[in-house]
């Protein structure tokens, strides 16, 4: 008996053979189409570079105008506080109208108005410094306010130490940032980057590839062969799963060696939970494409339900707890939310089972349900 004969009589082997053929076809298609290579390899690399070198929430060199109505020796120290601070790129003016003009033209992001009597008033206890910021970027503006407050506070404290009659606040705050001691924004941007890459490869690419087969009718051609629906699905899932894992490995290497983000948890847990999320993303892509059967509509819907929420609602940039209740409830339906929690914890905090177990369980549940749904909505029927 030849191998083919054995396969004929063993249904399981025959199934494996059919799946293998489908995977082979898919891989060939992938390799021959430059766009899916671009999506699977170039896009993760671009994203890694952008996130690593382009994005930063750390504010420095903010252009401010420091207005001194009349220079006086008492305030030189305060002025040099602004001059030497790495956070400010200060220019010194003597007229307020000129400063206002600069602010309107966006030449500066803030104005600090120091009156000449500030040092004298400081002794009496009613000194005043005005800080004016451009609120067009609210987050930035608030950080600028904070830094200005810091620079002025330090000056007051130094004068107090020098024996001037000044009172510093009796209670001071000593703050410590756990898991990210150096306050490096890469630490939370890089885990977010992995979520985006996995979502793009998993959901977006799969949805497009499957929708194309529906749209072009090539799926019909496969329907007349003995392959079953679950085999067709597996034939799509296996190659794109592999591509997703390549993306993950790229990101992990970049995280560790380019951006020096620590991986404090177990790498195996990280890989395992990523596989779960990848399965979820892949099956969402398959469900969307089977339901829409059109590349254009599938792309729009995938964008709407996977990529944008993964960026905006997953808790990677914006704090979920501060969102209004309806939006917060909505985030519970997003797989990305659980994956972000897992990544942030496994990267920065370690294997905290209190976070890993519940989130991984939910993710596994969603993966199972979505795979089932993908199987249900994909039927050997013509549209």
């Amino acid at each position: 008996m030849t191998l083919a004969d054995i396969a004929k009589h063993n249904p399981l082997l025959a199934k494996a053979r059919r799946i293998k053929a489908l995977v082979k076809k898919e891989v060939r298609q992938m390799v021959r189409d430059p766009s899916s290579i671009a999506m699977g390899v170039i896009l993760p690399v671009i994203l890694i570079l952008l996130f690593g070198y382009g994005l930063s929430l750390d504010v420095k060199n903010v252009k401010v105008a420091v207005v001194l109505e009349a220079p006086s020796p008492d305030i030189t120290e305060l002025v040099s506080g602004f001059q030497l601070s790495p956070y400010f790129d200060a220019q010194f003016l003597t007229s307020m109208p000129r400063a206002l003009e600069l602010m309107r033209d966006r030449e500066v992001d803030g104005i600090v108005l120091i009156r000449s009597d500030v040092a004298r008033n400081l002794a009496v206890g009613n000194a005043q410094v005005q800080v004016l910021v451009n609120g067009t970027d609210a987050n930035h503006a608030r950080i600028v306010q904070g830094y200005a407050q810091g620079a002025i506070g330090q000056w007051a404290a130094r004068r107090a130490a020098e024996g001037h009659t000044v009172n510093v606040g009796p209670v001071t705050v000593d703050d410590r940032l756990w898991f990210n001691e150096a306050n490096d924004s890469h630490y939370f941007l890089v885990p977010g980057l992995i979520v985006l890459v996995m979502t793009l490869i998993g959901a977006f690419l799969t949805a497009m590839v499957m929708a194309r087969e529906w749209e072009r009718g090539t799926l019909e051609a496969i329907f007349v062969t003995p392959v079953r629906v679950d085999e067709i699905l597996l034939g799509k899932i296996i190659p794109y799963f592999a591509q997703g894992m390549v993306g993950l490995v790229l990101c992990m290497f970049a995280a560790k060696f380019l951006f020096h983000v620590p991986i404090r948890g177990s790498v195996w847990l990280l890989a395992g939970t990523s596989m779960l999320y990848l399965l979820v993303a892949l099956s969402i892509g398959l469900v969307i494409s089977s339901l829409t059967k059109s590349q254009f509509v599938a792309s729009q819907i995938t964008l709407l339900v996977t990529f944008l929420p993964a960026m905006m609602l997953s808790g990677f940039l914006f704090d979920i707890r501060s969102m209004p209740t309806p939006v917060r409830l909505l985030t519970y339906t997003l797989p990305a939310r659980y994956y972000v929690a897992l990544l942030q914890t496994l990267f920065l905090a370690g294997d905290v089972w209190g976070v890993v177990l519940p989130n991984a369980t939910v993710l596994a549940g969603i993966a199972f349900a979505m795979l089932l749904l993908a199987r249900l909505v994909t039927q050997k029927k013509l549209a």
Partner: protein
Amino acid sequence: MFEAILRIIALTRKELLAVLKDPRARFSLLVPPILQCLIFGYAASYDLNDVPYAVLDQDHSAASHDLLAGLDGSGVFHRVANLDSVENLKTYINERRALLVIQISQDFERRLQSGQPANIQVIADGRNSNTAGTATLYIETVVNAFNANWRSSHGQPGLTVQIVNRAWYNPNLETRWDIIPALIGTLTMMQTLILTAMSVAREREQGTFDQLLVTPFHPVEIMVGKALPCMLIGAVMATNILLVAWLWFRIPFAGSLLTLYAGLILFLLAAVGIGLFVSSIAATMQQALLYSFLVMIPFMLLSGLATPVSSMPISVQYFTLINPLRYAIEIAQRVYLEGAGIGRLMPDLWPMAIIAAVTLSAASWMFRHRLE
């Protein structure tokens, strides 16, 4: 010339029909941007309004109670636990049950009363260091209020340097006020670019592009006929988002609509130019879509939408100079919030005009090149 215009009108009409006749495509063009604007308007905020915290109060004094009451009464902080050991503190942070733990040592009140500075320790979950930093700033505010109070009730002079903070254009510094005008540019660009890139690729994939080629249309006319409907749809989309910002979120519109739309037209020209260029490279719809994505993501991330341009490294800041979205967001925010006029917007308008001119002529060159 007149005939050319007639032909372009006919093509525009055909294009609009092709896109809008499919109810699912119609739905996916009109509803998602509005939904996104609503959801992101509520979600995309760096402001915090619910910070769970735990307390390890080893002092249990009147002063420490006062300080904590200030936190509980702020409306932002809510206490999830009173801890009794440092061991517990770790679990609360690790398992994300609290964003902050405040530790007050047992000599807190004694030090205060003897006139020595007392300090409280704040431990923050740095997994999202931005959120943690903002929460710590809020704590400082509460502590400052406590300090002022303590001084006045103990006969000491008021705060030494009073800092008067004022913010222009966005008096309460709400993130929503700057994110939503920025979305006018972002969402419009995303949809317009994909729509343009797909419109040519679809015809190519379905073989109808060849039919178009045997008509008396000049390649440039085909291009204009493809660009115009996409710009129209883009303008409608931008208007929808503007209406949501204005009527739903009630963000006051400070500028003139005329200025805003002048900027918008330039921006749409640039976006459509990029879309057409992408579609002239792509052979299939899938390629068109993936390539537009490849272009869109860097534009989006380096636009100042999520993180300020001024925080980027200098070399990356140079790259943002060719990013039309960067200028569009700046124009939208400045017109919307600052009420800036054309004169003040010139530094943003002329680069966008150049980008539009370059991409459109590159696309038209590619078009002729690939067609003839």
